[in-house]
């Protein structure tokens, strides 16, 4: 049984980003159907600020991941399963970058500059273009459903390790 753990920074970042993604996803889903109102503008701004926060934390996580060794996977896992796990984690990382990025592109193309917490202006990535804005919005939404699918797979896999394989894999991500 593998009792080696991630370090506390990696563990904190994992759960913090997970929490922020759940909130940003829910807020994003809620705000999409709102009628235009001052409240909607507020919620959009909060959603964008969460996205910027997640993007920055994910960049930091990636740097941390490359500069620290992750604990080895259980020896009982087949090579195929280890490889699939690696692919799934890579896909989650890519989506955690691509989703805020497409949101940022959408906002830029819509002609709405993102100002983080009303203080820090995030530069526009593209000029105003309504057709492009619509495209980025579609991509942003589609990638979110893909992330939801992968997160469900991630949770299901963790539960399978814990309850079926009983290899206490969850312990690696526990404080």
């Amino acid at each position, binding site marked *: 049984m593998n009792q080696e753990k991630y370090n506390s920074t990696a563990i904190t970042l994992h759960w913090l980003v997970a929490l922020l993604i759940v909130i940003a996803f829910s807020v994003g889903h809620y705000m999409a159907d709102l009628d235009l109102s*001052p409240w909607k503008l507020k919620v959009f701004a909060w959603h964008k600020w969460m996205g910027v926060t997640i993007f920055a934390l994910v960049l930091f996580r990636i740097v941390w991941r490359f500069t620290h060794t992750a604990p080895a996977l259980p020896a009982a896992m087949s090579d195929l399963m280890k490889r699939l796990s690696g692919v799934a984690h890579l896909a989650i990382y890519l989506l955690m970058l691509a989703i805020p990025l497409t949101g940022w592109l959408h906002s830029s193309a*819509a*002609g*709405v500059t993102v*100002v983080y917490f009303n203080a820090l202006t995030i530069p526009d990535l593209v000029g105003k273009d*309504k057709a492009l804005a619509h495209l980025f919005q579609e991509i942003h939404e589609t990638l979110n459903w893909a992330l939801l699918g992968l997160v469900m797979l991630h949770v299901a896999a963790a539960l399978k390790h814990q309850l079926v394989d009983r290899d206490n894999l969850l312990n690696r991500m526990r404080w």
Partner: protein
Amino acid sequence: MKNAGLYLALAVSVFLPLHEVVAGGIVADKSSITFVGKQMGAPVEGRFTRFDADIAFNPAKLAQSHALITIDLNSIDLASDESESEIKGKSWFNAAAFPKAVFESTAIRAMGGDRFEVNGRLSIKGITRDIVVPVQFRTVAGAQTAEGRLEIHRSDFKVGEGVWADPDSVAESVQVRFKVTLKP
């Protein structure tokens, strides 16, 4: 009346020969009217795609020079279809009742070099206000251009009423930028 001199100049201009300062339209694809507002502290860009202008400008004959600019408010290009239909609605432009914004100059003053100050009346949503617009007139490759920017306070024209009056949500100040190329 503080503008008496300007009105006198206009009145006099009626009796002067006008053939040296002929009003003309603009070259649409070399002209733009854009604006930047702020929502939740973040800059939001937009533009108008249809507008027309009758501009007669001669720096040597300012009293006869004149500008009439008409903007089709239904041609607004904003962040989304949703925000465009909202801004055409009653709380904002009420474009069904007031489809056009109109600026008509009353006097033009030379400020040195290619800079001029255009006094005039801006009408939006049935409200007319006197404004002063700094304009730079230039001749580029034989074509005359006029460009400048001005700040509009949206509440002066009741643009954004009711729940939208709150400046914390959508700021009071809107920066308008224009560049028009006059027809030769």
